[in-house]
């Protein structure tokens, strides 16, 4: 239990200067802002133990500690107000991640992590909520990166699916989603939907997903518009035996930003089932 001291310290500070509508002081804003996990890149760096010195200095000041271990950092990446996991589960996960023999690290360019983007779309004049699933793809020739759409969750958007395969293969791609699109909440997706004729450039070329095939056709034919992006979450499968979901937790305290909000142990068929249900990925 003592191992959770750092987490409890953060919980204590959660209750600290919560303000209603009084203007927060500049010092408070700075301290809170420095500690915030700003983007999923920041999350990955911290997960791997690479923490900005300003954040470390702030933690030393807040918690009166002289050193912050990777274990402490991993605790700080959990949404400490979520009650969806047991302390024992978090402890097991963290111990596995920091195991001396076989530590776990996250890789931005690696496989096995996805962005799930909840969107409001308009299809044939009606509004629907749906999820697009994207992953980072590395071009083997140039080494360049891009986000590509790899899946879609149905949500009843299409009454029937197009059977005719969309002609994806194109010699000169004109459109792509930059590898930092997530930093500005995937606004680039909105632009991609507006570029109807080239929209399919943003899709995984190898994908033969019937929903994506239909999406490509309907956007191409001008039947579908992206109205708004509602929320984004990142699903990670890079720690063997575990699934965790990172969501944005916006609040004015020291446990804020992109944090682990769901954690599940999952292997083999359970993992495959999770991927299919949550991301429509086989």
């Amino acid at each position: 239990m003592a191992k959770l001291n750092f987490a409890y310290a953060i919980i204590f500070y959660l209750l600290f200067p919560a303000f209603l509508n009084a203007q927060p002081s500049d010092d408070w804003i700075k301290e809170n802002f420095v500690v915030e996990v700003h983007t999923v890149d920041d999350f990955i760096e911290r997960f791997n133990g690479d923490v900005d010195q300003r954040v470390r200095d702030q933690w030393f000041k807040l918690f009166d500690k002289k050193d912050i271990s990777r274990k402490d950092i991993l605790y700080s990446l959990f949404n400490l107000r979520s009650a969806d996991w047991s302390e024992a589960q978090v402890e097991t996960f963290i111990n596995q991640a920091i195991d001396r023999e076989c530590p776990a690290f996250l890789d931005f360019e690696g496989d096995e992590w996805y962005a799930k983007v909840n969107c409001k779309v308009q299809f044939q004049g009606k509004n629907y909520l749906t999820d697009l699933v994207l992953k980072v793809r590395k071009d083997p020739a140039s080494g360049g990166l891009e986000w590509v759409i790899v899946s879609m969750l149905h949500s009843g958007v299409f009454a029937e699916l197009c059977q005719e395969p969309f002609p994806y293969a194109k010699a000169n791609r004109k459109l792509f989603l930059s590898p930092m699109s997530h930093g500005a909440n995937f606004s680039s997706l909105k632009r991609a939907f507006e570029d109807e004729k080239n929209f399919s450039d943003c899709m995984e070329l190898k994908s033969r997903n019937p929903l994506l095939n239909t999406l490509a056709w309907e956007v191409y034919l001008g039947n579908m518009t992206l109205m708004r992006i509602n929320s984004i979450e990142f699903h990670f499968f890079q720690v063997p035996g575990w699934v965790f979901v990172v969501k944005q937790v916006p609040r004015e305290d020291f446990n804020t930003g992109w944090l682990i909000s769901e954690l599940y142990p999952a292997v083999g068929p359970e993992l495959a089932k999770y991927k299919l249900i949550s991301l429509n990925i086989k």
Partner: protein
Amino acid sequence: MRLRILPITLICLFSWAAAYGQCDGKPPKTEEYSKQALQKTTYLSSYIQIICDNKSTIIKASNAVDLACKLFLDEDRIVQVSSSNNKAVREYKVRHYFEHLKLLGYTKVEIVWVEVGYVSQLRKGVDGNFYGVITIKQKFTGYKDDLPAYQDITEKHIEVVLKQVEVAQAGNSLRCWDVLLGDINVEETWQN
């Protein structure tokens, strides 16, 4: 009149001086890009102050809109505005966003940088450009008749694009990295 155009002229001169950073043909360095990207966001804040100030003449405000748009990769970049108190998300193409700011009708505007939160590492895109994200916190105060009429604190996530351009210098052609702004996500975290 001369005094009125001085701020814009100075920003233009500084923008020009800092327009191109690294010209050694190597991949861009993070320190260099972060310095330049933060400089461009400072220019953006200065242009916004001019655009919002209803004492700015129509010409001066329009010039500021044009110059602000030139800080971006192109005018298709999107500014997404959301509030922690309100789930509605507003999205504007950059020029539309600046035109919208023009209509706010403040007699004076102050934009104060509170902190730079995060400067990401650069990632190479499939187009050969490099991409990064910076996160800053700013305090905005809009005055009407010298009294604060509106205040907010926003967190801005700004995509930054580094593009190689040919620059002629002393008869030679150099390939330099130009730092441009991409999509911006503005989140209002507090307002009064």
